[in-house]
């Protein structure tokens, strides 16, 4: 049973990792908008008409 003295700190370190991951995700703005991505998911682009080549790079290089 004394293994618990080793397991407990390891568990806590693992949770600390999860908390750090959450902190990173929050700070990088992943939880800022929780509604629109759900809607945007349905916007597939297959029906897109030929786009002016001058414009195309802008549409594809959008961040996030």
């Amino acid at each position, binding site marked *: *049973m004394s293994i*618990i*003295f080793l397991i*407990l700190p390891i*568990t*806590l370190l693992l*949770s600390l990792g*999860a*908390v750090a991951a*959450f*902190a990173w995700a*929050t*700070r990088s*703005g992943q*939880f*800022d*908008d*929780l*509604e*629109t991505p759900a*809607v*945007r998911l*349905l*916007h597939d682009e297959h*029906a*897109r*008409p030929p*786009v*002016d080549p001058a*414009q195309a790079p*802008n*549409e594809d290089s*959008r961040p*996030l």
Partner: protein
Amino acid sequence: MSAALDIGTPAAARVPPQPEPQCAHCALPVPAARFEPRSEQQFCCDGCRSVFAILHEAGLDEYYARRDATPSRAGARQQSPRKFEELDEPAFRNDYCQAGAGGVLCSEFFVEGVHCSACVWLLERLPRVTPAVLEARYDLTRSVLRIAWDPSAAPLSEVARALDSLGYTPHPTHKASLAVEQRKGDRALLLRLGIAGAAAGNVMLMALALYSGKYAGMGEEYAALFRFGSLLIATPAVFWAGNVFFRGGLAALRTRTPHMDLPVSLGLLAGYLGSAVNTVRGQGEVYFDSLCTLTFLLLVGRYLQRTHQRRSAKASDLLNALAPTTACLVEGEALREVSANALAKGSIVEIRVGERIAVDGVISEGSSALDTSLLTGESFPEAVTVGDRVYAGTTNLSASLRARVESVGAETRLGRLMHSVEATQRERAPIVRLADRVAGYFVLVIVAIAVLTLLVWSMLDPSHALDHTVALLVVTCPCALGMATPLAVSAALRAAAKSGILFKAGEFVEELARPGIIVFDKTGTLSEGRLELVSWRGDEAIKSLVRAAEGTSGHPIARAFQRSIGENGSSCEERREYPRGVRARVDDRDVLVGSQAFVRAALGSLPIWAVTQAQAHAAAGRTPVLVAVDGEVCAMAAFADTIRADAAASLTKLAALGFQFEVLSGDDQRVVDSIVRELGVPVLNATGGASPEAKLAAITRLRAEGQRVFMVGDGVNDAAAMAAANVGIAVHGGAEACLSAADVFTTRPGLDTVALAAIGSRRTMRVIRIGIGVSLAYNLLGVALAVSGRLDPLWAAVLMPISSISVVTAALRARTFSGGAKP
């Protein structure tokens, strides 16, 4: 201002033809007059036709396949006639645009009227409509469209017009960096929430081991390990994540206002100290699991509450949007465009026709008609001449003017008005929520019971007195009480937004739930806000002459003629506009259209019938207009601002809820009286001719009398009064300043939404009260257990989540704003 906003309103009220064709854009029935048998698509109005054409040209027809075409939802597209020129000012660019990489600028617009996936799809394809836009991203949570655009390709006003032409009226949101501040706060709170959650989960695991160990037996060293482990995790959760409650509690103590944070801090602090001492002592109870869960759940409530707060605007921002920032300075013979704020007192500026005036001054040359509706709410233009005062924010309608500058910028009447909006908003006492009021008594009762417990147990069993007191403070920590309001309000606000009502903060739901006096503005609120031809006496053939004479003038009367009489063959050779009328040669005939005074001055005399009829119209609150052809008065038209179709029904609903009404309008007293008569609802007081300052004074007086006052309006002239009222409500189509001053605004036309707002608020309050009642009942049980010394940490750990779950279920299942507008 709402006059032209309504251009797109479909004539759905007219009888539709059989079989009923649908508008290709908005799916509303197409009026018979607009039906085109040979065309593939039918449109209910020009607005819809032009949007359809824009989408088709940009290859965005897919929009129609994406949206669910229910008429109530898609709605006819409304376009505003705004040119958005103020967006191109350098000052604006400084305040509203953020520079990105490669000369790209980023701006944010608050966009109304987005309800579905198809709207988001369409908005994000803005680059195909306006190539200057490189990227558009819509945020449904905040209703904000963020665009990146190339300032060298097109000015921002063009982008705004493109959005407007699609039917989504854009409202620039001030300074993206402030939004960033707000977002930082949101993220920080979310992080606290996450840490409290993680701590709660881990401590609970260890608590489980401790509880089972307590009943099944556990080695002393393991128990100590779990206790110290819990202490280690709970410390950051309580003191870092829960810091917000301690700070709130301290502030509440300092300002002596009741607040939920006070009992929360007390419980957390007592529980933590007691448990920490017991951990070190190695005996007695620990409550770390309850404390972490408590912090986590309370932070959930706090987070929900925060996401619904909207910032109010600054006076300087409003001023920029309302008055132009440049003026045309007269220097000898030359004219020069200069920044309005740089104008010296006494210099002369030229004000061209159709221009909005940038300064306050006195007319030195010329005479014209001014549209002062922005400032005063008066729907009819005011005739001005040399020596009269002009104010910033009003529009010159008929002839060029020169004026001597008296004040500029913040010193103008408009500037002072906007300043008073800001000041009143700042000074307004915060609303004390019901839950906080309850918490105020609650904390006193709990402290009293705690002291009593300590005293009684000190006499009965001194070794357990402190333990029982700590147990009491932990179990009564008002978790469910703290969650009841944010949850109910959050669910309600979501439903309200779906029904077209936006609350700036949850407090206003509580304010609106109790009856009081609702003060209505008239123009644009009770009425449609534009003049309509309501009576015509004379030959129908004359109409075509009048229509030609009115041409494309922007005068409200001319606009009403343009709307009610279609374009026709008559051509106008020569026309001249005067402050009170127009004279034109149409089809070789001399046509005079104008007020009684104007036609009398031109002809020398008027026939008796014309004079008596004009008097009758004026007495009934209508505006008479005389038409003379070749020197002979031959027709009389009368115009009135028609009442909104749903006004009477909505007021009746509100009256049933116990609200009383007043009307406070900048318009003529006779017009106000006739509207009130038409409403058929008892009104305490109907005042016409009220200036914005008078409106503010009236609201302040009512509040000083101890009344609860709600101001419903749509204009800049209502803004200060709205800010001073308990709740200011801006109706759909309202001006920018008015939206900023309002606490609640509606995104659907009509007054039905106001009734729904009151009804929904009342339903929400019922849910909140139930939540508070339930949580108090659980607390009573906890108190009974703790005082009798039977409460152990397991009981506390079970009681708290159960009470919270009951409150959450009650809040989420309730129908508040979605249940229709039946009281």
